[in-house]
């Protein structure tokens, strides 16, 4: 059980939903599936993207605050399908890697 938190905490913090990341680190969020889940939800529900209120250019005007880097709640159907595709590929990659790990272990005979 000990490794499960190591996977879950990044899902919570790096998903670019609750807290922002510096632009350079934002691609880290690609590794968490919660980020893609949130992107699909945001697009489907036509939500406003999350904004970093600490970095607004015009104080008091939320629209002047920068959107979290790489976050895109584009409500188009094509975008939703894309993100679903990413989620499926994410799953397939995990299962594929699991198969590779199992196969490699077998060879250590």
């Amino acid at each position, binding site marked *: 059980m000990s490794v*499960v938190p190591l996977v879950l905490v990044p*899902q919570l913090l790096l998903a670019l939903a609750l807290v922002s990341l510096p632009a350079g680190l934002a691609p880290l969020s690609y590794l968490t599936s919660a980020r893609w889940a949130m992107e699909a939800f*945001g697009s489907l529900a036509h939500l*406003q993207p999350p904004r970093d209120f600490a970095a607004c250019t015009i104080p008091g005007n939320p629209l002047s605050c920068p959107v979290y880097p790489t976050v895109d709640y584009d*409500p188009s159907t094509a975008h*939703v399908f894309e993100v679903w595709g990413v989620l499926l590929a994410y*799953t397939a990659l995990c299962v594929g*890697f699991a198969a590779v790990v199992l196969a490699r272990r077998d060879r250590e005979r």
Partner: protein
Amino acid sequence: MFNGHQVPEHELRHGDVLRVGDPYTGSFVTITYQRLARTMAPPDESVPRCRLDQPEVTIGREGCELTLASLLVSRRHATVRALPDGHEVRDLGSANGTFVNGERVQISRKLGRGDIIQVGPFKLVYDGRSLDSYDHRGAIELKARRLVRRVGGGKVILDRVSLAILPREFVGVVGGSGAGKSTLLGALSGFSRASEGDVLVNGDDYYANFDAYRGQIGYVPQSDILHQTLTVDEALRFTAQLRLPEDTGDAEIAARVERVLADVDIEDRRTTRISELSGGQRKRVSIAAELLADPSLFFLDEPTSGLDPGLEKRLMYTLRRLADGGRTIVMVTHATANIHQCDHIAFMADARLVWFGPPAEALQHFGVRSGDFADIYTKVEGDAHESHPLVLGELRTEYARWREAHERGEPSLAELWELRFRRSDARTRYIVERLAGEARGPAVKSNKLHNSQSRPSMTMTAMKVGGTTPEDRPDTARVSAWQQLVILVRRNVRLLAVDRRNLATLLLQAPIIGGILVLVARPTALQDLQSSHGRLVLFLVALVAVWCGILCSARELTKERAIYRRERLANLRIGPYLLAKFVVLAAVCLVQSVVLLTVLALKVDFTAAVTTFTADGPESVVRGVAGLGFFGSMLVTTFLSSLSGLGMGLLLRAPRGPRTGR
């Protein structure tokens, strides 16, 4: 029973052994028939011959021109077809494969004179016009020559061990903890191989021909290899479906299960859950599972550990009977109270073989007069030095000899005992002479190529020589992988269904967590698009979905690691195994997602129509991907998130790292 086959009557010959036993107490007597005037003719060893005068000869378990009655043979296993210039053998998609000279036939293969076709426990020798079939059922001998196993750091955990085990012998590997017993068993069984030396099975290089022998080996590891939550009958049926050829009918499987349960004396426990059995009965069920494919070579790792003396004695009796019924059995054991049931014992000490021979003679060899095997353990343990009582006494010559060869240091007692054994008559009688003996039947030419290397080249030759077009290529791999997937999915469903508590935990997670979400979510969460509350609620849903997915799969692979490992050594494929887990758990995830969102919808308004504010002013839109609706699209997203968690869980739990405890 004679030589492992049932016979109505039998004329005794010199050296034949009669055994009369009582299965209830596990006591038995052995009578050896001695007749010093050896005037009788040697037993008739004629070999059945099948002439290849038809254009096509089919080999199979039933209703074929050449019938080989073994469960390791598929109903229609292979054909031998006449070509203008000889014959070719073609595999008909058999479960256990057809091998020519130790290489698996992928499609078809041209035969050369003297080639050996292996089909299950049969060897067929091709001489240009006919096939001579040698039946190796109940007649497997195992020879090991100078086995060495080194582990990291150059430490030797198996030091030049040679031994010879004849058909139907029951051999116990004994010795103190860490003496190399399990290492020796691993090397002999091929499941964790020796780094140097050869293992010969009926004269064939065992490691190189491992795939051909894989199906004929039974291996019972220390850990349980059946799902504890299933009943004996269910567990054995699933194992039978996985291990026996695909074309084995349900009735045949039921008969086989009945038979193996009778073999291990637990017929009355058929419908009991394995977890409710006693330790001894559980071990018997594991042994029964391994007997399903009727292996001729059987390995057991400490089958009697944790059993009370009565159970231990009865289990040893069962093994003795299995050996007499046509199996070569090698067993690691700690318990020595019933060791006299074994034909031979291999005594290991400090990675060395310090004795191989009948148990009674072992006591004599080690100078133990008490008749207690435990005294041997004490005598072989520890380091020798000049004033050691054993060095001053019985090991004096060995110590002197060792001193001659070594300037410095002190030997371990095991080393001295090994020296003594190497010079003993017993070694000549039980190892040297037997190793020199000829194996019965033909031996596959050793091509010293290891399987992993020979496989690609073999495919190429098969394609070239066979000259077959891709269309008529039997799709062995896919068909049996599909079959495995179906069996495994059914087994996983069954496992899920019987483990009520686990199922309840999995299915209750969603409504409980959904209920908590309802407490914090506002009804307008998905309607008021300006507020960040909607994002928070949906992010929580996403996290919960991923979390449920991970939890769902997190226990799956760990809880059956031992089972997986054993089945993998038989014929389990990784693809079907993982996919079967995935499919069944995905169904659980789907239920969880539906429940989670339904509970949430009790409070949160999922109305699709909403007014958004764009640069051009307010605009009314209907949300959701066409055809699915808003709620449906949200559900798909939740389900997909949950699947990604499932994938992560499987990856996290895939066993990794070097194998320990071996």
